């Protein structure tokens, strides 16, 4: 375990150096979450006339600023890189090495998202404090928010890793990634907050994995959930995260077997 931690630290350090050399592209990438703001403006235009299921203009602004933060922290894109590696001759070199392939990819994503977390979180928290959107914030809710972001991030990574593994059977996985992202955006609370949805639909969506990386962290951050709800939904999120880890292991085992046998 300590060997793996050392390997992770080395990879994270190397990737941080890489990011420092490609900082222009990385800065552009950090601002790539415009669509949540767009949806926010549509809701603002409607909420100007009447509140929607108790949501006022200010509530929508606070919710969507939270969404920008959480979406940026938890959204993972690894399929381009994995696809490129699998289709190139280098992939076989990774397989010959003594550690699992996932340990080459995961530290890089941790490095990227660690920076995003450190840069974005204080900025967004300041905006939310200014908008008086964090009246319920306490050390426990901050700890729960961080925990939830970590669960959402790990879940997203392993879902993306599963989708990237489809490349063993098809030429491109981008189509599946896009389908997944659409689904996550709509069913995860990105396009429409759960409270604005019809009550039964909102109740149903908390059982799906998509809430773990969007709605749940945001609702914890802005203090919309009670303790019972937080525990229940964190449990659901953890279950989906473990399922994604186990699923990715199994799928990659089958995929690699197919790859090795030609």
């Amino acid at each position, binding site marked *: 375990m300590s060997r793996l931690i050392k390997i992770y630290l080395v990879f994270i350090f190397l990737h941080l150096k890489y990011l420092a050399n490609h900082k222009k592209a990385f800065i552009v990438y950090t601002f*790539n979450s415009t669509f949540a703001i767009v949806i926010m*403006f*549509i809701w603002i235009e*409607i909420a100007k006339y009447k509140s929607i299921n108790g949501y006022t203009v200010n509530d929508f602004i606070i919710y969507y600023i939270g969404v920008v933060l959480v979406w940026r922290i938890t959204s993972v894109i690894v399929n381009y890189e994995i696809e490129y590696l699998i289709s190139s001759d280098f992939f076989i070199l990774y397989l010959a090495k003594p550690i699992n392939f996932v340990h080459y990819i995961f530290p890089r994503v941790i490095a990227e998202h660690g920076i995003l977390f450190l840069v974005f979180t204080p900025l967004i928290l300041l905006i939310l404090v200014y908008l008086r959107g964090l009246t319920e914030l306490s050390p426990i809710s901050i700890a729960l928010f961080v925990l939830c972001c970590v669960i959402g991030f790990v879940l997203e990574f392993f879902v993306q890793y599963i989708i990237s593994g489809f490349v063993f059977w098809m*030429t491109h996985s981008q189509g599946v990634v*896009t389908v997944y992202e659409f689904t996550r955006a709509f069913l995860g609370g990105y396009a429409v907050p759960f409270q604005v*949805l019809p009550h039964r639909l909102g109740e149903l969506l908390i059982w799906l994995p998509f809430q773990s990386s969007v709605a749940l962290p945001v609702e914890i951050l802005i203090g919309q959930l009670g303790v019972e709800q937080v525990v229940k939904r964190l449990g659901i999120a953890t279950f989906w995260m473990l399922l994604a880890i186990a699923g990715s292991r199994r799928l990659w085992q089958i995929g690699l077997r197919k790859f090795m046998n030609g």
Partner: protein
Amino acid sequence: MADWIKKIYEWLIFYGTNFNTLLKVSATRILFDRLSLSLSLFMSILDALWTLAVLHIVYAHIDKINNWRFEEALMATGFFFVFSGIVEMIVHPSINFLVRSVRDDTILYLLTKPLPVLVYTVAYYKMEKLSKCIIGLFIVILCLDVLKIKLYPTGVIALIFSIVISVLMVYSIFFIIANFYVLALEGDKVEELFLGIIRIARFPVQLFPEPLRSIFYFILPLAFISTVPAEILLNRFDLRLILYALAVNLILLAINIKSFNAILKNYINR
């Protein structure tokens, strides 16, 4: 005079034959990957369904937003699908191919070929994205039927004109960004950002508050992607806007040519 006609004829035959071969090669490549083809169709349907669902939820709370009813907003969304189908089918793969060939040092090989580089890039089109255009057209026709709108030849001409303008405009913007991207930036993140910005046009700009509406008409002309075509059919358009778009397009085209020449010069002289 006869010489000119002969030259034009030879030029057309030369380009036509080469272009036809490139298109056939691309079509074979795409049909080989049938899974991606069917997935693309599924993805387009899902995309349309999500957008429809968001619009439905939004309009469940209000009848009209800035005088736009649900069916009218849906028509603009249909045009967005037609447009983004064209962009994802031709514009995006072509720019991607160009950027990749510069990075992989294969552009020199393309420069030695008899056709201009851009012709080869366009040949890397993605036929599977046609499904998005078809779904977009289906939505537009459905809305036309529901709203009982009759099409007149002048309206159709203005519509085609506006779509061509918007595609050329986005092509130019894409191209300029791609050029700067090759010259100054590395990584695959810039195109993600730009595609993210285009997604704003998924909904008519009338759904946004001012000053965003004016920005999307005049500064970041996303309105020409979906709102203006819908306004043309709804007979609400302003001819001055189309002329403005044409002028912007010409300026972008000029910057486009300049920047492409600069990138080639920079590439050859390095």
